[in-house]
């Protein structure tokens, strides 16, 4: 939505339209992931053939992934802080860091999926496999979309007038999305991985 205009239509609440819609979207996405997590929780214990969760989860490895995603949230606020103070250079550094951390997380997920696949866990092997891949896969898709969004912002920052202090809201929106994806992982990491181990 980054456009060449800086018209801020005044609103009845004084709050920005896009931010309002974004929070509504996040509330809606809570229900999306809530439903997916429910599906995982009620289904995964009914798997009839292995591998079972305890056998294949690698807690130390996933902890590192979770940590990486958590830290990407930190770099995201720092990027936002940068642009809010008009420091495009700092914005670029931190947004790139965030995108890289996001890619590391995705890489970890791809590695994990490959390992599990070798261990015999596939989408069709058991209901645990189905529920696990669909839940974490949808989260991964969210991360992937987020990475593209971040890279788009980075790219746009090289074109004058697109990513500037007055339009820091464009970055804030991406940030809200990114943090949300992070908190979803906080929940998944606990209820899927840690509780099982």
């Amino acid at each position: 939505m980054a456009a060449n205009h800086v018209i801020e239509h005044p609103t009845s609440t004084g709050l920005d339209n896009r931010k309002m819609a974004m929070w509504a979207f996040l509330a809606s996405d809570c229900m999306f992931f809530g439903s997916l997590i429910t599906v995982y929780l009620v289904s995964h214990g009914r798997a009839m053939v292995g591998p079972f969760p305890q056998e294949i989860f690698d807690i130390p490895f996933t902890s590192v992934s979770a940590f990486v995603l958590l830290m990407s949230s930190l770099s995201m606020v720092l990027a936002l802080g940068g642009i809010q103070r008009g420091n495009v250079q700092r914005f670029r550094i931190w947004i790139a860091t965030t995108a890289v951390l996001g890619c590391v997380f995705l890489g970890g997920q791809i590695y994990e999926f490959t390992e599990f696949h070798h261990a015999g866990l596939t989408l069709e092997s058991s209901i645990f496999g189905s529920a696990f891949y669909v839940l974490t896969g949808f989260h991964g898709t969210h991360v992937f979309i987020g990475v593209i969004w971040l890279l788009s912002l980075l790219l746009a920052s090289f074109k004058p007038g697109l990513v500037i202090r007055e339009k820091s809201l464009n970055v804030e929106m991406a940030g809200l999305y990114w943090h949300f994806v992070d908190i979803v992982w906080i929940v998944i990491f606990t209820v899927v991985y840690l509780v099982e181990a």
Partner: protein
Amino acid sequence: MAAEHHVEEHHPGWQEYVRIGVILAVITAIEVAIVYVEALESVLLPLLLTLSVGKFVLVVMYFMHLKFDHKFFTWLFLSGLLLAVGVVLALMAMFGLMT
């Protein structure tokens, strides 16, 4: 539009962000550690849930600025969140996972 931009642009400085980041990292470390402590096995579930709720709240309040933003956003997000939690709990109960 009368109340335009009365919501203060109060943003924590980067030191505060980093401090939150460190706390988050520490909580994650604790979470992983207690999984391996056998003595805690009986209280593991509530402990883990408490810790992740803590992380969740920190990210939402500080990184997503809900603490400093208009209360309307908090209510909006909370309504979706509570509804989702309600659905999760109700379905877990009905599928016999809470006994």
